[in-house]
């Protein structure tokens, strides 16, 4: 029964914090562009409005898949959030190789975008889905190699063990190999979140928000919420693995929030100072630039640095 409680509490907390984080993102964007920006409740209003609107299923769409995949994507993000909140709340509650579980769950939202976009039957959504798929193949390789640096250093796939190890030996970040891994992972979560240099899949100015093109009302709200939750889950995952864990008690909570806000601001500033890449440029960037660097980081980790 308590597991259900953990699920609900972590879902609500992640959703609320995610929507607030999205507001911070929009507000910083506005300030960078010398504007005022939206009020703090803006994203809550957006979600409420979308939930109240009509759901349209296009004639050419596969009805079941079109309506099911947003839910699958949201549940993937919610489950990953639940694992991370639980592990950070009590490292002893961690189970065997939960890091692999989290990596798998974090692919689900991207998969939902790909499948939902393909199911909508719109050629532009199909184009967006194929781009998202290529991007997934691009960033997943350096992202996992970046995490491998920590796995080699600690010698376990257990998130609780990793947090405990960092409690005894200091942040992973302080090791050169893990520092390289952390920087690579930040670029990879930029792509996972679909923020600007890598918003190739939903490119509003060329393919009209791609896979989301045919979505309206509640399913669109679910995708919106998934993105907002990923904005919490992915930085939290990086903090857990590289930056000494997301402590939830006492003074630790304050440092956790500061760590999170630093990552969020870095993501937003990358998003505001870069133009969109083409899909071939992005894949080349991930495979031929980040992959060798990640490989070097792994070799350094094997040497013990």
């Amino acid at each position, binding site marked *: 029964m308590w597991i259900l409680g953990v699920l609900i509490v972590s879902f609500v907390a992640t959703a609320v914090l995610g929507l607030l984080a999205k507001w911070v993102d929009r507000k910083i964007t*506005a300030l960078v562009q010398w504007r*005022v920006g939206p009020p703090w409740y803006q994203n809550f209003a957006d979600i409420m409005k979308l939930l*109240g609107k009509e759901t349209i299923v296009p004639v050419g769409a596969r009805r079941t898949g079109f309506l099911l995949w947003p839910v699958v994507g949201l549940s993937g993000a919610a489950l990953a959030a639940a694992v991370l909140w639980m592990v950070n709340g009590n490292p002893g509650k961690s189970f065997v190789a939960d890091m692999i579980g989290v990596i798998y769950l974090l692919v689900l939202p991207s998969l939902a975008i790909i499948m939902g976009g393909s199911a909508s039957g719109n050629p532009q959504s199909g184009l967006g889905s194929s781009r998202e798929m290529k991007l997934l193949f691009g960033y997943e390789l350096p992202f996992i190699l970046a995490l491998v640096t920590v796995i080699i250093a600690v010698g376990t796939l257990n998130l609780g063990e990793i947090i405990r190890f960092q409690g005894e030996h200091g942040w992973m970040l302080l090791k050169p190999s893990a520092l390289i891994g952390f920087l690579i992972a930040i670029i990879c979560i930029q792509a996972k979140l679909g923020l600007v240099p890598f918003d190739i899949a939903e490119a*509003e100015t060329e393919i*009209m928000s791609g896979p*989301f093109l*045919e979505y309206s009302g509640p399913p669109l709200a679910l995708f919106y919420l998934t993105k907002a939750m990923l904005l919490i889950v992915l930085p939290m995952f990086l903090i857990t693995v590289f930056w000494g864990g997301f402590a939830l008690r006492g003074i630790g909570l304050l440092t956790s929030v500061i760590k999170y806000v630093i990552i969020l601001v870095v993501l937003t500033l990358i998003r505001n100072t870069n133009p969109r890449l083409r899909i071939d440029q992005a894949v080349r960037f991930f495979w031929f630039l980040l992959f060798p660097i990640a490989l070097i980081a792994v070799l350094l980790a094997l040497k013990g640095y």
Partner: protein
Amino acid sequence: MSLKLKALKKSPWVYHVNTGACNNCDIEILELLTPRFDVERFGVILVGSPRHADALLVTGICTRQARPRLQEIYRQTPKPCVVFAIGACACTGGIFKDAYHFAGPVDEAIREVDPNAIIAYIPGCPPKPEAMILGVVKALQAL
């Protein structure tokens, strides 16, 4: 119901439909989104798909080519939605009212699809961005 409506008033996403305008009104609409007027303060975002939109910003006289397409876009927009006829041409036909390619003003084209459509008129050639903001505020109050 009232909560839904309140949320709709706080985040109207707009889709821009050009049904044969001379681009003057379009430039003024883009002016709205620039830092000077910054309508994101009120939650207004320009979206690329009518499926995401809550408001259609229609500019230009409704030409014979554009009329069926405008009606199709209105059908594709999830309800509840608001239509804004922006500029003298969209409101009445303006100086083109006797032209051979004029197919009736925008409100008639929309009413043909949905007799109960909510249509707001913002006259002017082109209307100022301030006038557009005022029109949006008035339309949302009437909702």
